[in-house]
């Protein structure tokens, strides 16, 4: 500490911060490109986009997590499409979702409660397509024990 002058400390700070930010930005740019390439095998339909907007407008993330991010009041939904057999029978899975949304709040004693979101059939369909899209994102095998 004694030999380091304030001017040297300042120069190291500015130079270093700039350097690390540039490295970070370049890596993020690379990740961005890879995420766009992913859209070729897992295209984002208008339905998926509308589903994402519902996710945002209903603040689903303020109870649930998606890829582990959000609140921890309710289950992770990144692989919920597979959990209800979406890859085997998409129509049946959508019906399950529809019945699920309609049944809220269940009022079951001691269980965290989900509000009635008043989703139309079209909304539920968009939501299902969105959840199908996220289920096909390569999350480096996270979470452990996820339905595949």
């Amino acid at each position: 500490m004694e030999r380091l002058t304030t001017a040297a400390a300042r120069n190291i700070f500015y130079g270093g911060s700039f350097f690390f930010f540039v490295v970070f930005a370049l890596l993020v740019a690379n990740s961005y490109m890879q995420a766009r390439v992913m859209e070729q095998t897992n295209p984002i339909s208008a339905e998926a986009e509308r589903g994402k907007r519902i996710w945002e407008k209903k603040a689903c993330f303020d109870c649930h997590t998606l890829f582990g991010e959000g609140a921890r009041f309710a289950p992770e939904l990144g692989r919920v499409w597979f959990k209800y057999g979406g890859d085997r029978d998409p129509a049946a899975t959508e019906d399950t979702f529809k019945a699920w949304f309609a049944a809220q709040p269940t009022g079951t004693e001691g269980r965290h409660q989900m509000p009635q979101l008043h989703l139309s059939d079209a909304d539920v369909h968009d939501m299902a397509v969105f959840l199908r899209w996220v289920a096909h994102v390569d999350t480096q095998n996270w979470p452990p024990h996820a339905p595949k």
Partner: protein
Amino acid sequence: MKYPSQSVALPYFVGALVIFSLQLVFGLVGATMYVAPNLISPDLLPFSVVRMIHTNALIVWLLLGFFGSAYFLIPEEAERDIWSPMLAKVQFWLFFAAAVVAVVGYLFGNYDGRSYLEQPIYIKVGIVIVALMFLLNISMTVLNGRKTVITGILLMGLWGVAIFFLFAFYVPANVVIDKMFWWWVVHLWVEGVWELVMASILAFMLIKLTGVDREVVEKWLYVIIGTALFSGILGTGHHYYWIGAPAYWQWIGTIFSAVEPLPFFAMVLFAFAMVWKGRRDHPNHAALLWSLGCAVTAFFGAGVLGFLHTLAPINYYTHGTQVTAAHGHLAFYGAYAMVNLAMITYAMPPLLGRAPYNQNLNILSFWTMTTGVGLMSAALTFAGVLQTHLERVMGQDYMDVQQQLGLFYWIRLGGGVLAALGLVMFLVAVLVPGRRAIPAGAAFAPAE
């Protein structure tokens, strides 16, 4: 108080404490929903709305505290009055009104966005306008006055806060890209530019409270913020492990975020070294306690609890469990709530033209609140470790695991009640100064 315009900080500090109280009320409601989920109908008040008010109120009151701190300390550093005190007053009421409109809107289902950024678009635009008013005001003050290292770093931090907030407007349809840039607001705030703001406020207070030489403080400051940004920028990678980003982030995030505790450790060393070196016995002992407590609690909350789950092989199991919530609570409290409470404790007596008052009650509030948040984080850590084992290692169902964590959620609620009790003491300690007024500047001479 040396400069009359410093008084614009007063409404900011009072406003911050009002919103802090709101944050705690909704925190208690949310914690109650964990242990008694059938108490309140989710159609009346869903958990999601409680959480968004809890987290948004946190951010708003911390920002109000930062704004107030900047208006209080910049005149003393720049040795001149605020460029436009009127603009500062207008800015306060605009920001406060936007916060009230947002909260009332949330209660009626008017929200749209991502986590922490649920504000409707017009509120987000309002926040940008407020930020521009603020940055114009403080930048003009600094540019026209004495330039110190403290104001330089503070300004850099506050400009960074505004610049990275702009990514709140970028909401791409691709969830992976959306999440990547969402962290440009969230992580580059709290593990980036906010650390600059925190370090400079802490440095200002340590100069005032210990009387230590400015030159010594400045060198420390560069070392602290240097380690903060060198580790913190690429440390963003620890949020990119499992969101659909490439695997290389596991290496980058692990290596760089493992270094993230270092700036917080340096802040502890710095704060205590300054107290030992300084010969000044400032009468505001409570402010010094909050300053030292801030450095120590930030080290445990941000540094230790953060390191606990930042390495990719560990985070694979802990990600998205209550471990994150435990870390979030103690880190935000230690680093950012406490630095604001320290500044408020330090600045209120001169703002009211008094010698330090209600010191014992303030010190008691420090211990009560810190014990409360500590208990809360400890309970959530236990809940998180258990959840990690049962859910992520054993593969049990989410809701089945939640049913087994009840005890820890009750302890968490207890910690919350204790923290709220501490806040009540703090409010009385700083907002009820008593009758005996002492002429400004009579009891303590400013350092330097």
